């Protein structure tokens, strides 16, 4: 079996990009000039200029995304992998003969059972493919929750036992999670970088098939200038209506967008932070991230490290590819709108930090475009919001300033200010069309192929699901627009966010919680609707989609997490995806394993109680403690407090998480615990 760097002669990357940008600029210019016609003779130049600037800034980004999707649709339709890293030739997939690879699973206070079920499923798949010798697994823990840490150690022990993976599955915890996930990976590179040729980065919810893991190593082996290959993940395992909505949208529209992106990015692609293989030597030599100057939230450690790392690899002369055709790459999505927004809050801050990276010396123009696109994905919300608000303000100003048909100077003709409503409607249709057409292309692509159509549950279900997704996402869009605007303003104002664990389990959100989180949006929606209905009833239909989303914010959050609705939608096959209809073997195995992992890791009581009850786990904890990063850096005051509290109360429940962590890093205390001391008020020992 042989892999080739290039598949077939094709247009040069420069030509594809030139075409894309020419189309983007042309349509932006045309839209901008049409926009000016709306206000012809309105004598409101300042408003016009301001609105035009807002419109163009928001529109070009939309246009770029639109043309990229059109390119993706054409590439998919023509079955082209122009200048992509090649598919393998026919024949069975053989294990890689060279290229030692570490599979890295960075975790941070995750629920251990599903994480270790995924790891076991991937390990077994590689073993079944006869390729396990080429791979080693690392669980890189940044967990700050002491109880989660001990559960992870127990899970690592159990995983080694289950798959007989000792010496091939490793576990390392950092005492301090400096620089978050990028710091976690950097710590791995600094400690074991020379041991591996490649590393495959996963997220806690990532899953990759053995075929994909093996093919990635082959592709790296055969393409020596490639520093990183990203496999776009497909969303799976969603349970709530909201999660399934995201899953369906990503599955239906994702191929068009990723094919388009891969088409014009080619070897100057981007990195999404996980489900990617990286050449360790290239990464270690180029991707040591500095702290950004200035205060948090825009300064400090880089939260959204992936785009920056891709930019640095490209700056160092390495290629970064996206290979959407490969498949076998999965992830999960937040189950509720609230969880989705929480994740967006973190991503927003990370992407806005890129404003400080944007002018960095030596970056390729396309890297700056990637960074700018990331910034715009959040900045677009306040821009559109300002645009809408300015439009409403303009209407209000018009109401307050009646038109003057006969000016105070001498003139032969009265002044007839015009508002070209037809132009405005045409432009609105263009904007909506550019938002909807890429989705329509994804729908058409799925509908056109018989096998694809069946995989989505048939034409009727696919159409119904498409329409439901369009309706619900249109209602959710204004809610997210307001939330994102708040995030952007908050971040620019200096309000940062902490690195929190992403919620991955479905749960219903009640009316009270929804009201407390998004009630203000519903009230705003009602107020705005009433205001416009009173002042400008004719404009109501313009603003109706926005108002409807806001008014319905609370019920939308509640209903999209309702277990009954979710179950009903699943039963009738609405929002069905190919992976839901016919789950890949790896996914099935992971689901089979999860309950047994839950049973294995069920630990009544906290970390200390568990360690004192499980002598082997405690001995193991002591044995692996010196292998954790920075394990000797003591928290003397926390340790003293912890010992004092235990001495006084004998109750581990009285300890704070920091105090408990300090104890779990303290060998003298742990040795005492192993000898049967340390809990229930052994004062002499605790005060020693």
């Amino acid at each position: 079996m042989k892999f080739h760097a290039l598949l077939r002669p094709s247009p040069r990357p420069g030509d594809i990009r030139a075409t894309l940008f020419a189309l983007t600029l042309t349509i932006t210019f045309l839209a901008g000039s049409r926009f000016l016609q709306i206000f012809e003779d309105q004598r409101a130049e300042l408003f016009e200029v301001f609105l035009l600037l807002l419109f163009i800034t928001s529109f070009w980004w939309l246009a770029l995304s639109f043309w990229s999707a059109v390119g993706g649709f054409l590439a998919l339709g023509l079955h082209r992998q122009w200048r992509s890293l090649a598919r393998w030739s026919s024949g069975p997939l053989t294990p890689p003969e060279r290229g030692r690879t570490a599979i890295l699973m960075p975790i941070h206070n995750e629920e251990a059972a599903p994480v270790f079920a995924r790891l076991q499923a991937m390990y077994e798949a590689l073993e079944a493919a006869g390729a396990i010798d080429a791979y080693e697994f690392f669980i890189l823990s940044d967990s700050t929750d002491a109880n989660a840490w001990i559960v992870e150690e127990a899970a690592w022990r159990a995983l080694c036992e289950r798959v007989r993976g000792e010496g091939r599955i490793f576990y390392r915890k950092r005492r301090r999670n400096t620089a978050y996930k990028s710091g976690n990976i950097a710590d791995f590179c600094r400690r074991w970088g020379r041991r591996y040729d490649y590393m495959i980065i996963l997220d806690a919810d990532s899953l990759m098939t053995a075929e994909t893991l093996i093919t990635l190593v082959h592709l790296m082996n055969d393409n020596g200038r490639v520093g990183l290959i990203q496999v776009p993940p497909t969303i799976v395992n969603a349970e709530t209506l909201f999660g399934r909505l995201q899953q369906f949208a990503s599955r239906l529209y994702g191929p068009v967008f990723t094919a388009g992106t891969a088409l014009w990015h080619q070897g100057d692609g981007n990195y999404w932070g996980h489900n990617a293989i990286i050449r360790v030597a290239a990464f270690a030599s180029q991707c040591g991230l500095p702290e950004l100057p200035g205060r948090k939230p825009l300064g400090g450690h880089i939260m959204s490290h992936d785009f920056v790392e891709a930019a640095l690899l490209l700056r160092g002369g390495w290629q970064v590819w996206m290979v959407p055709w490969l498949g076998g790459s999965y992830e999960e999505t937040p189950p509720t709108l609230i969880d989705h927004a929480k994740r967006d809050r973190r991503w927003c801050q990370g992407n806005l930090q890129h404003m400080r990276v944007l002018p960095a010396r030596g970056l390729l123009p396309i890297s700056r475009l990637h960074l700018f696109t990331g910034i715009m994905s959040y900045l677009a919300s306040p821009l559109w919001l300002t645009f809408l608000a300015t439009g409403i303000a303009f209407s209000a100003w018009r109401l307050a300033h009646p038109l003057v048909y006969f000016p105070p100077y001498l003139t032969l003709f009265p002044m007839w200010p015009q508002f070209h409503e037809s132009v405005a409607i045409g432009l609105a249709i263009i904007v909506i069309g550019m938002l909807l057409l890429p989705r329509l292309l994804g729908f058409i692509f799925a509908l056109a192929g018989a096998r694809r159509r069946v995989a989505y549950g048939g034409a009727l279900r696919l159409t119904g699901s498409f329409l439901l997704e369009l309706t619900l996402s249109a209602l959710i869009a204004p809610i997210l627009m307001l939330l994102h605007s708040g995030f952007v303003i908050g971040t620019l104002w200096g309000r940062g966010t902490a690195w929190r664990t992403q919620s991955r389990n479905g749960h219903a959100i009640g009316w009270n919680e929804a009201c407390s989180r998004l009630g203000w949006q519903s009230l705003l929606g009602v107020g705005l609707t009433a205001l416009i209905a009173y002042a400008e009833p004719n404009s109501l239909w313009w603003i109706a989609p926005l108002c409807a989303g806001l008014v319905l914010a609370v019920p939308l959050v509640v209903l999209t997490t309702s277990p009954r609705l979710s179950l009903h939608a699943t039963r009738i096959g609405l929002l069905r995806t190919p992976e839901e209809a016919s789950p890949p073997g790896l996914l099935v195995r992971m689901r089979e394993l999860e309950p047994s992992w839950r049973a294995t890791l069920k630990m009544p009581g906290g970390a200390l109680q568990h360690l004192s009850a499980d002598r082997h786990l405690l001995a193991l904890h002591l044995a692996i403690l010196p292998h954790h990063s920075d394990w000797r850096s003591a928290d003397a005051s926390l340790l003293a407090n912890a010992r004092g509290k235990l001495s006084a109360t004998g109750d581990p429940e009285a300890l704070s998480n920091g105090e408990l962590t300090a104890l779990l890093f303290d060998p003298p205390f742990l040795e005492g615990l192993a000898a049967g001391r340390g809990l229930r008020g052994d004062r002499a020992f605790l005060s020693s």
Partner: protein
Amino acid sequence: MDGLNTLPGDRQASAPILDLLRSFGFEDSNTLYSLAARLPAADIDDPTRAARIAIGQWFARLLDQAELDAEEAFLLGRAAFTAVDCNRRRPESFLAEEVPGELVSRLRLSLRVSCPPDTPAVMMVQPLDPPAPFAAVVAWFRRRPRPVRSA
């Protein structure tokens, strides 16, 4: 218990040594004192450290892990020892010269190494500074007026 009869002279073990043995899961006082007698004499400066080294060396030999230092072998060996429940099943084999082959195999299978040996790579922090003219503009914007002191 076979091979673990306690003699009055053995009851010289210090509390830290007994604690160390308890960490292997030994609880019965006869067993504890008998095993303590197999460790280096109690009159040395740091009996616990000497005991850890002796046990570590024993584990290193038993588990065929000569490259490990004594402390590391002690920690890994203790974890393996407790994993196979040796304290209850075969207490007499602890620190014994002759250990049954089947037990050695089980101990070796129970060894858990959490990380491979360090093979460090250099990962230098990369600059993300803007070009000089741009940096000057940024610096100009960042410059804050000094507070004016009142007379």
